[in-house]
């Protein structure tokens, strides 16, 4: 059952990812993107990472994509655009590279039999943390202890991004 669901969601994710690139209008790309993110969230659920799945839906598929949609509509970019001549030619090597990488990764997975050996030390550690702290606590605990520096630097990063965006975009100079 889980296997079948996984393949369904994986197929939807990959199909929508193609849709993002191939869609004719920006809004179309955007909706395909939402679909990709939602099906990735579904695979997170299958991996029992419920908190991550919820965050994926709320933050990515919800907040960020809606913002994208607003921007596209406000800038009136929703209509179909004429492709430039280079695009179809550039797509062939791009897809070739992505395909080669996907094939390479699949081969490595097959060769090392990751499906069975995935329960490494890291995996067992995550299971133990999930049992002890629950889905949210298992993320919060390391976030505010081992990764506290990362967390704070992320705050600085967001501040810098806001300052930069405002300095470049505010109305009066």
């Amino acid at each position, binding site marked *: 059952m889980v296997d079948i669901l996984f393949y369904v969601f994986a197929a939807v994710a990959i199909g929508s990812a193609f849709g993002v690139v191939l869609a004719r209008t920006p809004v179309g790309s955007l909706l395909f993107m939402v679909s990709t993110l939602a099906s990735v969230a579904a695979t997170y659920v299958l991996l029992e990472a419920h908190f991550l799945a919820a965050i994926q839906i709320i933050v990515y598929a919800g907040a960020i994509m809606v913002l994208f949609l607003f921007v596209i509509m406000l800038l009136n970019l929703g209509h179909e655009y004429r492709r430039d001549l280079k695009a179809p030619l550039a797509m062939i090597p791009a897809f070739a590279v992505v395909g080669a990488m996907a094939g390479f*990764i699949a081969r490595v997975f097959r060769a090392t039999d990751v499906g069975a050996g995935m329960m490494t030390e890291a995996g067992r550690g995550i299971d133990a943390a999930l049992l002890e702290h629950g889905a949210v606590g298992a993320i919060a605990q390391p976030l505010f202890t081992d990764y*506290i520096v990362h967390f704070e630097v992320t705050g*600085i990063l967001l501040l*810098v991004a806001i300052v*930069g965006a405002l300095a*470049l975009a505010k109305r009066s100079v």
Partner: protein
Amino acid sequence: MELDFSRQLHYVWALLPEIILCVWGMGVLIAGVSGPAHRGEDHAVSEDPAFGTGSGLGWVSLVGLLIAAFFNGWLYTLDEVGRGAVVAVDDFRLFANWIFLGGAALSILISFTYVYRNRLQAGEFFSLILFATAGMMFMAGARDLMLLFLGLEVMSIAVYALTAFNRRDRRGAEAGLKYFLLGAFATGFFLYGIALVYGATGSTNIDTIAAVVSGGRAREGFLTLGIALMTIGFAFKVSAVPFHMWTPDVYEGAPAPVTAFMSVGVKAAAFVAFIRVFLVGFESVSDQWYPVLWWLAAITMVGANLMALSQTNVKRMLAYSSVAHAGYLLVAVAAGNETAAAGMLFYLLVYTVMNVGAFAVVIGVAHQGEERLQIEDYSGFGRKRPELAVFLTIFLLSLAGFPGTGGFMGKIYLLQGAAESNLWYLATILVLTTVASYYYYLRVAWYMWMRETTSEDQHDLVVTPLPMKAALIIAVAVVLYLGIFPSSMMEFARAGVEGLGALGGGLLGVHP
């Protein structure tokens, strides 16, 4: 004091210079918003640009850098226990921090009048420089790939914004957008590389990665692909040749003080992180990445120097020169021994002072703006303003690697490092391309000293305010001092590299 990272408080001590810079940046930001310029007063009034409105924030930022430098010195008294922490407190990081702080301080010194003349928003400008410097310091201190990535992004995003900072300049906007899009693309590669390395080794900690990789427990294919993608990310940041396309346009379009800051700071930070990740983390699989770096270094040196030969815009010429210097420094990464790594630190230091110095004179000649950047604009400069022309000549000779300057000693140390790893072809290419580079550096000097001025008043408006004079004198003093007495600084750099890879197992200086 001993640092024990099981206690969170000790991260505060280990990151004190970075924290001070970030807090100071926020303070400058708030001071900039509440300053007189934002209360609707006319700030085009004529006053000394070195001490007038807005420049106060520049001096405040310099004080912040000074305090951060003080605590960077204080960090030498701390000892870390074990190497499991995400932040390294080793001499390597502290030496790199000196380079970033010095580069930022010199860049701020040369930007006072530029900010004033072009009516840039001083608060945001100086605080973004401080944040970018903090990002560089996070990169140098990161012993964890995620923290390295965050530092890289803090630095990059601040620099993207600074590139497009002059909103009245169309080329600045174009350069900023180009840099941002290509930079985001390269960041994607870098991040995917980190993810694959994590998939291969099960850790993002560089020392753990080193242990897993040298123990042969890493998944081979993932590791190779991860290293390849991370190489692309780094090569973009240091602007090595197939990934250098953005460099000339961005360096030309960005405000000149930002170009100076970017060419020294971003490059130094990327190289320092490059060394730590590749020579510590991936040391035992160096046969996988060493040939790639060999070719990158060779193509970068040859290509950049060839393209620089035909440039007539001085800023663009310095951009290609900066790409060429990335090639020289890649020789050190490819050589991968202790001498080469120490030589790289030494070279980064010299490069920082001489490049900012050269840009200072360029800004002066360009009337503190973006007006006169063609090589013809320098004709007869030596007779009108001999002191500035002498300074620029010294910086250009140092960039070219003329004996008696710091640039020469830096190249000698790089060659020494290459020789210790028997990289004779790379060493030969380095010497030959250096000889070629004399042409485009000395052409500027030739215009300054041998050509007549095109009009009588050509250089009358060249102003060098007090802070810029200070930066020039400091830069010249350091370049000449390091050229004549390099050994003490080289010992210092060598001390910074020693022990860098001590725990990963042997390390530094094993391959061919």
